[in-house]
């Protein structure tokens, strides 16, 4: 019997010996509580690690009461700059607005941009449309207050990883449909786009990070018992991917979101849009978060940063 984990890059196989204890491959509903504990972000001082970064907290009006939000900026930022409206990962069920944001803190330092992140409501307590509504309302608030926040309104990228990538794609679709805020680009890191099975969703059972069962757990939590699936819940369901801002899509070749990510890019191209697609060999889901030291993760991080530089700084 060949080892199923041989699909992964050898450096990442080493990392899985550590990651597996924090982020199990297979997340069932019973594990949601454990994941909320283990995927919670580190204390702020540890996050910042002495970097010259400021975090300002806001309470903003949400669709169902107040929402926590934060803006991360370079210490003593003097000028208005571009910004990323960043939606956190966590399968729609866990994580907080600082989970998996280590790379984003480096954008702030290296690119001199700002990052705005919000505490959207989580499933299963709050199924669709609650997380999406929160994210859309947060974007509108950010754009309306761009001047006060020191953000250039024409230079806002909507982004996110995994569940956050799905939410970013949904918010971008809604901004188009509702003639909402102008978005410079959409940054979709290994996004959770499609509630329907694809060939790659069933290929990595029980290995890596985020397998078919985890995905089913996430979608069941988000969709609840809805009869129809809205494209704002599962953006792959959108009939039309035309008229969208440029997309950056990156995904691992060894993860379940591979095929839906590739298909989203293909459909954007078919509709005449712009998409930069990277499929990283041997990469498991979110390897850049769990193993940023590995070669393939570093290439992934560098390509993403270069695109952000072009979108927001150049």
């Amino acid at each position: 019997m060949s080892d199923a984990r041989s699909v992964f890059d050898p450096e990442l196989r080493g990392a899985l010996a550590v990651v597996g204890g924090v982020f199990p491959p297979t997340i069932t509903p019973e594990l949601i509580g454990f994941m909320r504990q283990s995927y919670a972000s580190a204390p702020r001082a540890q996050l910042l690690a002495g970097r010259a970064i400021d975090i300002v907290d806001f309470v903003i009006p949400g669709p169902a009461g107040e929402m926590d939000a934060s803006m991360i900026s370079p210490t003593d930022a003097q000028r208005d700059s571009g910004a990323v409206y960043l939606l956190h990962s966590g399968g729609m069920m866990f994580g907080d607005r600082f989970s998996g944001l280590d790379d984003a803190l480096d954008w702030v330092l290296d690119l001199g941009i700002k990052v705005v992140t919000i505490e959207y409501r989580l499933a299963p307590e709050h199924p669709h449309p609650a997380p999406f509504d929160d994210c859309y309302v947060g974007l509108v608030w950010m754009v309306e207050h761009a001047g006060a926040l020191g953000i250039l309104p024409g230079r806002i990228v909507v982004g996110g990883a995994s569940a956050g990538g799905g939410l970013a794609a949904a918010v971008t679709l809604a901004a188009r449909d509702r003639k909402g805020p102008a978005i410079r680009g959409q940054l979709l890191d290994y996004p959770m786009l499609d509630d329907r099975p694809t060939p790659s969703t069933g290929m990595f059972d029980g290995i890596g990070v985020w397998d078919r069962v985890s995905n089913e757990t996430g979608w069941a939590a988000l969709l609840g018992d809805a009869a129809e699936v809205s494209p704002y819940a599962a953006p792959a369901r959108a009939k039309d991917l035309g008229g969208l801002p440029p997309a950056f899509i990156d995904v691992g070749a060894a993860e379940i979101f591979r095929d839906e990510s590739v298909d989203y890019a293909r459909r954007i191209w078919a509709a005449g849009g712009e998409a930069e697609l990277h499929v990283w060999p041997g990469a498991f889901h979110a390897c850049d978060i769990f193993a940023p030291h590995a070669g393939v993760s570093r290439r992934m991080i560098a390509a993403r940063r270069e695109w952000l530089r072009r979108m927001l700084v150049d």
Partner: protein
Amino acid sequence: MQELLGRLTALDPAASQSLRVIACFDELIAGDVGVHGLLSAAAALSGRPVGLIRGRVVTRIDPRGEPLESSLPPAHVHRVFDDVAVWIEDAADDTTDLDAIILERLALALLIRLDTKRTSTVPPRDMSVLLDRSTPGIDRREVAARLGLAANGRFRVVAAPLFATWTHHPRGPEDVVATPFGPVHAAVVAIDATPVASPLGIGSIAAIDDIDRSFRTAMIALRLHGGSSDGPSRADDLGGLAEMLADLPDDRREDGDQAAVELVTLHKWGASTIDALVRAGSLREAARIAGVHHSTMTDRTEIITATLGFDPMSGIGRTRLGLAFLRWRLRTSRVLEFTPAS
């Protein structure tokens, strides 16, 4: 990764960080990862920059895998071979145990990677040799002696996933051992020891010459473990069956009985009903175990009988169903994937 190791300890204070470091480097060595990747992993695991000196050339890598400017090595370095040495920077007053293990594993990996003149390969670790079925008896006895196991003693091997939660850690030699199902935490313990981990497989009793068989039965017991809330799973409970299952090749094709069991398990009630039938002496008792009405159990058993093509409650049919069900459970076992600290 250092942060992840720290989180693991916070979630499960008994978590064995050193085993995870060893498993990590085992994978890097097996994957033939290059010098930069090895240094990056060591830096990521320790959370601090790691340095390498080869002759006069110094390489330094930070915990995110980025190269740092060259600088002089510190006074104390860990020698790899000849004029090659490694170190972890900015160590606290005392080098921690974990740092020592990281450096030792890094040095071994670099030795394998860099010492091209070396004619012999680095020997596998004692525990792997001890538990490998193909090890000649004389070699097995030699590594057993090195591991401090009495030549005429009898032992059990226990097996747990790397991420098991230990509540009673056994005394005895232990290590990470590669298996077709991924790396496993294996330990050799006294026959009256009471190791407790969740999940854990406890192998049959064996003398040194047969200790590999105890490991294989421990793996069978582990893979049959019911889940994180159950106590240890014991090969003794299956007796000769555990030994027979342990001797089946992992890639053996599914037979007709197993295929039929698979079909039955497509029913929501399938697996729990077969489980009840296998344990019970009668349909009435099976109904009680499964917590369903007698007539429901009768209906389900009729479906099962039709699917199997034989009566699962009589004669050799009981054995056929029991064995096919055990093999189905082994094939679909997910116990090695992960168990969160409760």
